[in-house]
């Protein structure tokens, strides 16, 4: 009998939500055949079958969030039972009961408390509701019987409303209950991560302006030559140089060991807005890639993110994050740092504005605003301003970028 457990797919993942089983009991499967879709931190991943056999039993139901290590389903091994059992017995002779117990049988109780009375818990259990999904009406987090019933009705109401197309007149007289959107999946992961970041990191955000006139001119010139490179690709390169000068923003605070880890790798995360929510694919080793390579990679990752086709490796290990919200609009924001990084930069809309030149002439220039949030535990405002000044100087005179190239 093969046991399929939820294992760590993305690094540091501790739990996952079972989205969908791709097999049902009785199905024959081969090794590496996808068995189940699991929602992890940032993506939907498939768990492959560890071997060939027949699906015997599915233990964990769809929609449940389980810890890594939880058994999800059983597969009956290929062929008769005997060889499998025998193989197992000979593999694990060490599991024979030792005469002297090496480990103490101490029971460490995990404090996984559900704030609800036993009866309320039973109602939820009997209706296959994970009580942790029920929003408590009591601000202290206690879930009541009514909360569970409301949760059940809420689900049913949403279904009924979807079916009925006409709103009947008397319906208007009745109080209208709010629409419910299930709070799970990526949305819930984002909520969790943002909360952790904001409650852990003392955020400071500072704003600045960057004159984009020269960069846009350069891009136009390149375009004439038939070279298409997006503005954000230049940003990424400039950021790498700025980060090299101010390594504290390409770092992680290891509070437990009282140290700040200055990363030697430049993995830049880029925030992408998708239908499901925010995803941050990563340009790895941005310092070792040309602007053209960065441009191509950004384009590719962006498409993959929108199609939900990112793989685990593509969303891991970022050391600094960039949020390019300019195309959507906005002039400023106070973005939340992508924990455990120490800083994040957001680029806003570029506008045509009158600029006073060194010769006291007024000309039309292109100016972009940016917001940079940083962890005030590891850096101070002056450092952050110096960082964005360095970045701005590289963008305002893109020729300088050339000087930095190896």
């Amino acid at each position, binding site marked *: *009998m093969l*046991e399929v457990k939820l294992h760590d797919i993305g690094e540091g993942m501790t739990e996952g939500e079972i989205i969908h089983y791709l097999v049902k009991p009785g199905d024959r499967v081969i090794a590496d055949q996808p068995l189940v879709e699991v929602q992890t931190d940032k993506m939907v991943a498939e768990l492959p079958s560890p071997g060939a056999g027949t699906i*015997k*039993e599915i*233990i964990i139901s769809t929609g449940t969030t389980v810890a890594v290590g939880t*058994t999800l389903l*059983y597969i009956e091994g290929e062929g008769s*039972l005997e060889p*499998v*059992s*025998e193989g*197992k*017995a000979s593999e*694990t002779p060490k*599991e*024979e*009961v*030792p*005469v*002297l*117990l*090496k*480990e*103490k*049988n101490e*029971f460490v*109780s*995990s*404090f*996984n*408390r*559900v*704030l*609800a*009375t*036993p009866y309320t*818990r*039973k109602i939820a*259990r*009997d209706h296959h509701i994970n009580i942790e999904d029920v929003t408590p009406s009591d*601000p*202290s*987090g*206690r879930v009541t019987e009514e909360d569970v019933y409301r949760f059940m009705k809420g689900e049913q109401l949403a279904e009924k409303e979807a079916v009925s197309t006409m709103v009947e007149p008397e319906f208007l007289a009745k109080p209208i209950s709010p629409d419910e959107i299930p709070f799970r999946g990526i949305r819930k992961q984002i909520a969790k991560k943002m909360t952790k970041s904001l409650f852990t990191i003392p955020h400071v955000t500072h704003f600045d302006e960057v004159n984009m006139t020269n960069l846009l001119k350069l891009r136009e010139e390149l375009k004439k030559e038939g070279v298409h490179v997006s503005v954000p690709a230049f940003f990424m390169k400039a950021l790498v140089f700025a980060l090299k000068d101010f390594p504290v923003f390409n770092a992680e605070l290891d509070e437990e060991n009282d140290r700040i880890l200055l990363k030697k790798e430049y993995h830049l995360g880029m925030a992408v807005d998708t239908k499901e929510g925010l995803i941050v694919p990563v340009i790895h080793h941005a310092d070792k890639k040309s602007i053209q390579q960065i441009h191509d990679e950004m384009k590719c990752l962006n498409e993959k993110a929108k199609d939900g086709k990112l793989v685990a490796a593509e969303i891991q290990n970022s050391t600094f994050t960039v949020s390019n919200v300019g195309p959507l609009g906005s002039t400023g924001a106070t973005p939340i740092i992508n924990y455990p990084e120490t800083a994040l930069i957001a680029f806003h809309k570029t506008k045509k504005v009158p600029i006073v030149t060194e010769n006291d002439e007024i000309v039309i220039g292109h100016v972009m605003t940016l917001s940079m949030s940083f962890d005030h535990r590891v850096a101070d405002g002056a450092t952050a301003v110096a960082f964005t000044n360095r970045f701005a100087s590289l963008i305002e005179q893109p020729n300088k970028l050339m000087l930095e190239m190896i």
Partner: protein
Amino acid sequence: MVVGDISQERDLVIIGGGPGGYSAAIRAAQLGVSVTLIEQEKLGGVCLNRGCIPSKVFTYAAKKQSETGHMKELGLFVGETSFNLNKLLSYKSKVTDQLRSGVETLCKANKVEIIKGKAGLIGEDRIGVENGHQFDIYTFKQAIIATGSSPVLPEGCPKNNKRMLLSQEIFDLQELPEHLIVYGHDYISLEVASSFHALGAQVTILLEDTDDFIFDSSITKELNRLLKKKKIKVYKEAKILSAEETEAGIDVRFRTQGKEEDVSGTHLFAAGNRKPNVEDLGLQRFGIEQNVNGFIKIDRNMRTTVPSIYAIGDVTEGPLLAVKAIKQGKAAVESIAGGNPEVDLAFLPTIVHSIPPIASVGLTEQQAQNLGIDLRVNQFALGSNGYAMITGNKDGFIKVVTDASNDIILGIHMIGEGAVELSSTFVQLLEMAAKEEDAKFPAFAHPSMNEALLESVEGLIGQAIHTVPKGKRQKESSLSFIR
């Protein structure tokens, strides 16, 4: 495997008739499941015959003995008290016999089939039962393994020694030890130490491996004070190096807090560790997963890695307590019968029938602190309780730990007379996710020990009536009753 044997068909087969096994059998009968219970020795298991019940006969006798001093204060002179161990042993047998026959009657009345013999799995749906020369094979739809656990002799302790006693032997002892050395750190060690002390033995505790008892630090402090008062010497971080039987007793050499010491007693009791009773079941052959120490792994429906086979109680991972076995036994059967039960051990109370007893439920102050919770903590001394004064049980206190951000009770810990009885209220409050007001609102009998719980909660915000306000006479306030 015996080929060609005729097997008999059964629905649910339970291996082991301890508290978990027989509770499961009776619950199965109540739910209309046809059930067969296999037991190789006596119904009731270790708990009824050699563990929980016999030990409580001793702790109860010891408690009564300890009350004789106070009886004189009440004007009740019953002459010189003396203790006859043989009489207590026969009383113990009477109690266990009566309880066992009660269980047998209940099983019979519920039409539980009882088969005597030793069981071993011979397939995922077959079991062999050996009884003398007889060997029968049964097929089953589901089986529940409830075979329990056995004590393991600790390292350094000799096996063939009459003066060396394990938990199942100490309550059969024919003579009262003159000087009992207790080696362990769990509830049973404390119960043995305090009972035999009250019954007249000199007692020395070798606190195995740990630097102190495992309760909330306030309880541990009070416990140490009371042990000292009784002149029970406690050696911490102790490890026995050797134990040799002499003509008069037993010489124990042990390491304690870095240095070696010797102690001579008449008997040595070792709580030891426990191992699951799985040797003859043949678990590995069918892929039933066990942990490193051999305890069976189960899911939330008590199911092992083989879907037709369940396991409950001591033989599974987790705490080794009858209360767990009973709860799991009933839940396993309910699950088999199509129900949707749950066993949640988060608020399993820690109970010690010592003198005075200890009951502890939920988070200790230290655990809650480690979780980073903003706490309210209060301790109400029993010396300030009217009924404790009447009964002469002034030692101890109730300590309440709550979450200051939402008033929810996190843990309740008590050392003092009445702790075991009051513990059900503690558990109830925690299971109901009670807030401070939920504990303060109800009317508590007056005068009674219950009021101590009320006042321990009221005291969280400085409103216990029978506590001197803080800052005025802080030292002589409720704390003075503890000292």
